[in-house]
């Protein structure tokens, strides 16, 4: 299952960059959001760490939606959904592959969001870069696990897939709160041990939705 998932992730990443487009839409939207939010402070005024982190995660949350709608659009455009379903791969490996590809694309987007937050929001990265990377990874996994499951529902829905966002955003709230709180803690110099509760919550989110997705994905992604 792992190797077939990796194959699907590789295929999707190649497709994402083949058109020269990649996650450009998600990156641009995120940068735009950071810039627009920077207007909400008077010139020279700094954003608090909490405001900056909240904006960073908002951009990531929007990015996830765009990324997964892109990833599932591939199967629609190329009409490969049926082929994938007929192949001997377990259906779940399709979900895992999409989730991995989405994770890569999201991390790539955040490579742009983070410096943008430094520049426009005056974000102070603190002195624990390893902790920050760990936190971003843990939260991203949760966002992508959920994104891969819900994104599959948008498959074959035409314009209706945009409606799914009204349920995705509220579902993401616990992990976004975790991302914001851990980020603020790390920037203010709290040691990782002091944030164990929040890390536990984020991991619980990752595990719970990964489990749910493994069970439920086969019901969502079926040929007509």
């Amino acid at each position, binding site marked *: 299952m792992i190797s077939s998932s990796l194959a699907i992730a590789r295929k999707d990443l190649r497709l994402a960059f083949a058109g020269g487009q990649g996650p450009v839409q998600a990156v641009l939207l995120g940068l735009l959001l950071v810039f627009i939010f920077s207007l909400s402070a008077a010139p020279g005024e700094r954003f608090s760490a909490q405001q900056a982190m909240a904006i960073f995660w908002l951009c990531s949350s929007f990015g996830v939606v765009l990324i997964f709608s892109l990833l599932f659009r591939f199967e629609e455009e190329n009409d490969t959904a049926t082929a994938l379903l007929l192949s001997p791969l377990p259906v779940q490996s399709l979900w895992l592959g999409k989730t991995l590809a989405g994770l890569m694309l999201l991390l790539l987007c955040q490579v742009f969001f983070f410096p943008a937050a430094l520049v426009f929001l005056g974000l102070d990265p603190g002195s624990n870069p390893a902790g920050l990377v760990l936190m971003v990874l843990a939260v991203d996994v949760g966002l992508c696990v959920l994104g891969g499951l819900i994104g599959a529902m948008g498959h074959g829905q035409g314009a209706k897939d945009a409606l799914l966002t009204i349920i995705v955003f509220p579902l993401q709230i616990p992990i976004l709160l975790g991302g914001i709180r851990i980020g603020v803690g790390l920037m203010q110099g709290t040691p990782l041990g002091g944030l164990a509760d929040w890390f536990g919550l984020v991991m619980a989110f990752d595990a719970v939705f990964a489990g749910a997705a493994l069970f439920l994905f086969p*019901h*969502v992604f079926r040929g007509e």
Partner: protein
Amino acid sequence: MGMFRIYPKILMILAGASMALMAVGQYAIWYHAPEELTMGLVQKIFYFHLPLAWWSFVAFFGVCVSSVMVLWTGREHWDVLAGVMAEVGVLFSGLALVTGSIWGRAAWNTWWTWDPRLSTTLVMWFVYAGYLVLRSADVGGTKGAKMRAVLGIVAFVDVPLVFLSARLWRSIHPAVLASKGGGLEPEMWTAVWINVLAWGALFATLVLARYHGAGLKRRVEAALIRIQEKTLQ
């Protein structure tokens, strides 16, 4: 069809029972329960705020159970029941939020404050309101029932995570039921239980009425198809 003939009778009994219980409940609120010492009369909001919040969570749990049954049995009526439960749940949790907000204004001088139970209810209200919008937009086409079921399960799985994260964020809600006895006098407890029961009966009535309506709708659709087939012949 047989079931739809019986429903009106059960419905009438349930509606009558919930009205009677509500009347007793209202009596208990206004005359039986004593005035709370620190918060005064405003504390009486509690007697309908709490049942509304409780039954809305029962409704959301019902959505999850029905959704599991959809995936398990594939029967259409479970899908209908999930939608009905979500609707009543959104109504109840919406009312719990409004009354909670008014209570907060009276007790803490603020319309809205961050509190685990309040915030969890708000997030759930958003999730299930979104779920209802998706239902009415008919997302999913032929696979719709299964997709709605998956959403119904995923939404409920989120509840404990939302609550935990909201509690870690911070809390000022009065822990009415956490400490033993909770500082409530016996007469207050009677009022609480009668009202929980009354709202439960109303909840059942509304769910059944809405479910009955969904049955009617199906009958209309079936008759339309039959007529269409006849005219085509």
